[in-house]
């Protein structure tokens, strides 16, 4: 099967062609952005000094090594996206970011934001920081260094970055929210069985 690759600047057509569960890769500009970055942009209304329109952001805090004349990416994997749920919808509208990459799902508000701003959320497998670092061709810059290594904005040039599993598409379909319903149904059943077994085992004594 052909690798599906998104390239920045990402067009609305490319975003609309993606469905939850699809696997894609990204080439182009990827900027790390976590809790502090979202808070500053949305709650404080301060924009970083870099163009964000039609690029991708990565909920990630990397390990970066200082080298002569710049930085070297050592390990960079996704962090929990749900932490950014509070601000992501407004963030998409304000910045024009088209692809949000992280770990785990995001909620109904972000799904709404993806629909309104024609954007998607995708998952990079967690704990795979070396695979991701190897796909970073260059660290082009750093914004807001005062946030510290994990929270600063790292501006990256990536090549075929992925696999990225689409978890919210531009129609607002939400893979993790759908899974959650299934998991909770299965949980009720599994919990009832487990409890019954354990309670009867304890009662035997």
């Amino acid at each position, binding site marked *: 099967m052909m690798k599906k690759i998104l390239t920045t600047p990402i067009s609305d057509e490319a975003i609309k062609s993606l469905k939850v569960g699809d696997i894609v890769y990204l080439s182009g500009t990827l900027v790390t952005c976590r809790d502090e970055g979202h808070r500053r942009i949305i709650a404080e209304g301060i924009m970083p000094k870099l163009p964000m329109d039609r690029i991708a952001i990565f909920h990630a805090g990397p390990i970066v090594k200082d080298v002569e004349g710049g930085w070297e990416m050592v390990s960079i994997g996704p962090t929990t996206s749900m932490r950014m749920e509070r601000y992501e919808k407004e963030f998409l509208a304000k910045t024009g970011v088209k692809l949000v990459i992280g770990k785990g799902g995001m909620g109904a508000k972000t799904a709404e934001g993806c629909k309104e701003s024609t954007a998607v959320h995708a998952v990079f497998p967690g704990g795979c920081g070396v695979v991701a670092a190897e796909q970073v061709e260059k660290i082009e810059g750093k914004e807001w260094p005062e946030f510290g290594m994990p929270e600063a904005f790292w501006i990256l040039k990536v090549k075929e970055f992925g696999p990225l599993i689409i978890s919210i598409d531009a129609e607002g379909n939400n893979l993790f929210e759908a899974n959650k319903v299934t998991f909770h149904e299965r*949980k009720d059943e599994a919990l009832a069985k487990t409890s019954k077994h354990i309670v009867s085992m304890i009662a035997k004594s």
Partner: protein
Amino acid sequence: MFVLDQKEMMTQTLGKFVDLVSKELPDDVMAKLKELRVQEEQPLAKAIYDVMFENMDKAKKLSRPTCQDTGVIQYFVRTGAKFPYLGQLREILKEATILATKSAPLRLNAVEVFDEVNTGTNVGTDVPYITWDIVDDSTNVEIEVYQAGGGCSLPGRSIVLPPLAGYEGAMQFVFDTVVNWGINACPPLIVGIGIGTCSNSSALLSKKAMLRPVGTHNPHPKAAEMERTIEKGLNDIGLGPQGISGKNSVMAVHIEGMAHHPSVLGVGVTIGCWANRHGVIRFDEHMNYEIVSHKGATL
């Protein structure tokens, strides 16, 4: 030849060990992940296992931390009362953390409390976090290092239930915690459960349970049966790797317990992610050491 003193030797050895633990998963975790990978049938879940194994290969080959979140470093010290460097061990562990932070390198994760400023060194007030147990009268010490990222620390919690809630209430707490919070903690998970008498004893027992080698069971037959039953129950939910859904949810469920006050039942839950970076090293009084968790590894 320049001869290092014993304290310096231990510091350097431990520094290298913390570095190693950030880059190679311990034998027990590796063995279990291989087993679970084979069982997986769903294409998306299989694709994720492929990336996980590719990542572990690359981390080892390139000598880089397998996950970018190398945690706030935690040490669990199990010592004999006569280990001669006990008084200097806190300083040794702190220095070893600084060494590994530079050599690995580890991510700078220590944010100073109240000031909320990154210390830039991975050490700070009471960090590295150290738990001390005097286990016997010997001259040996066993040190376990654990690198828990934020994602798998987030679900950890403890609760103190009234006695009538019983083990049924405890199970509700465990299952709710895993399903509501475990998805973002990078499954397949290691679930540690502590049955104690207050919030801190239950929480600490659950952490110690989580760190027990995968594939071992609590020596109490009822606790071992609980472990198997809960593991089966959680796997039936099928969180799959990264919570994307799949065959399994967990690598293991471990339970530790203590006698408790009759009017309370404390329950603690600690979650470990698939990239479970823990390691055990044992020293004698002459600084001879043995790596328990990573057979064949050299420092």
